[in-house]
């Protein structure tokens, strides 16, 4: 999976791909035939839109299509966490961290703290439990950086 995520685009995006990326990052309708309802906005018909979304998911241009849940509004919790994995043990530690379903994203970064991951838990109380498990499994100290204030988030990426 990480291989697909890191690959360069295998084909150029066409107008429909760009319209989907630029116009369907939010606001997808809730209705009996939502793809038919959304298709006009991107200049396609229902079957074409459904087919193209499948292609974009399959080739990794989209990582997901559907509702984006706010874990915290559902009573759950997020935290950004980091650890310093020894270089020669990096792949093993990656596998141990990724094996936790609560790990939603995980990135390698060029810093002494070289592995940064986001935990999404159903309850705030689960975060220290998962952190303790990861520390026990990997032998690495895990630093957590829960957000104390959110200064603005908007969808700004365009194709």
């Amino acid at each position: 999976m990480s291989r697909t995520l890191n690959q360069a685009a295998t084909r150029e995006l066409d107008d429909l791909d760009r319209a989907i990326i630029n116009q369907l990052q939010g606001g997808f309708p809730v209705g009996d035939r939502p793809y038919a309802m959304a298709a006009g906005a991107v200049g396609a018909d229902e079957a074409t839109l459904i087919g193209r979304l499948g292609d974009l998911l399959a080739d990794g241009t989209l990582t997901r299509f559907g509702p984006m849940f706010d874990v915290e509004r559902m009573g759950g919790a997020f935290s950004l966490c980091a650890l310093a994995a020894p270089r020669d043990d990096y792949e093993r530690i990656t596998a141990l961290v990724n094996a936790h379903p609560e790990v939603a994203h995980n990135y390698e970064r060029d810093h002494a703290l070289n592995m940064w991951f986001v935990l999404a838990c159903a309850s705030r109380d689960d975060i220290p439990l998962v952190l303790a498990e990861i520390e026990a499994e990997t032998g690495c100290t895990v630093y957590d950086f829960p957000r104390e204030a959110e200064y603005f988030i908007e969808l700004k990426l365009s194709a």
Partner: protein
Amino acid sequence: MNKPESFAPPSLNAADIDVDESLVRSLQSGLQLVPQPYEAVARELGIGADEVMARIRRMLDDGRIRRIGAVPNHYRLGYTANGMSVWDVDDAQIDTLGPRVGALPFVTHSYRRPRRLPVWRYNLFAMVHGHSRAEVEQKVEEVRALLGDAVRASDILYSTRILKKTGLRLKERG
């Protein structure tokens, strides 16, 4: 763990929360690519499509669902340089300056987070995406200019590899 309370605002009753929780679980990997995706979820849960749509609309209204749509992979859009800029900002000024950083058009996320001294001195995180590291660095200089004297130190952590990226996956813990 008290399961019902962990998933929804307390204004909803337990039965509602159970149905909403089932709905979240069936939608967390994404919406099915079929002409009637809400109908498909309704069949799976054994409830009506109208009820599924009403519940989804309620979750949109109260913010449990942020939005419904496509999540692009930054890398595949050419945003191959992903710099997490981190800043040690004067505590007295961060809540004034943070929203101004977050409002910059190229900053996609911006948070105040705790320091972990002595390992980590930075309390402001601003994610900057660009087509190259040079572009990211140019944008980071704009952040620096905005923060001015309030900054004591800063760094940019580039992501060198995506190790995992999935949607929300909720798991019950025993």
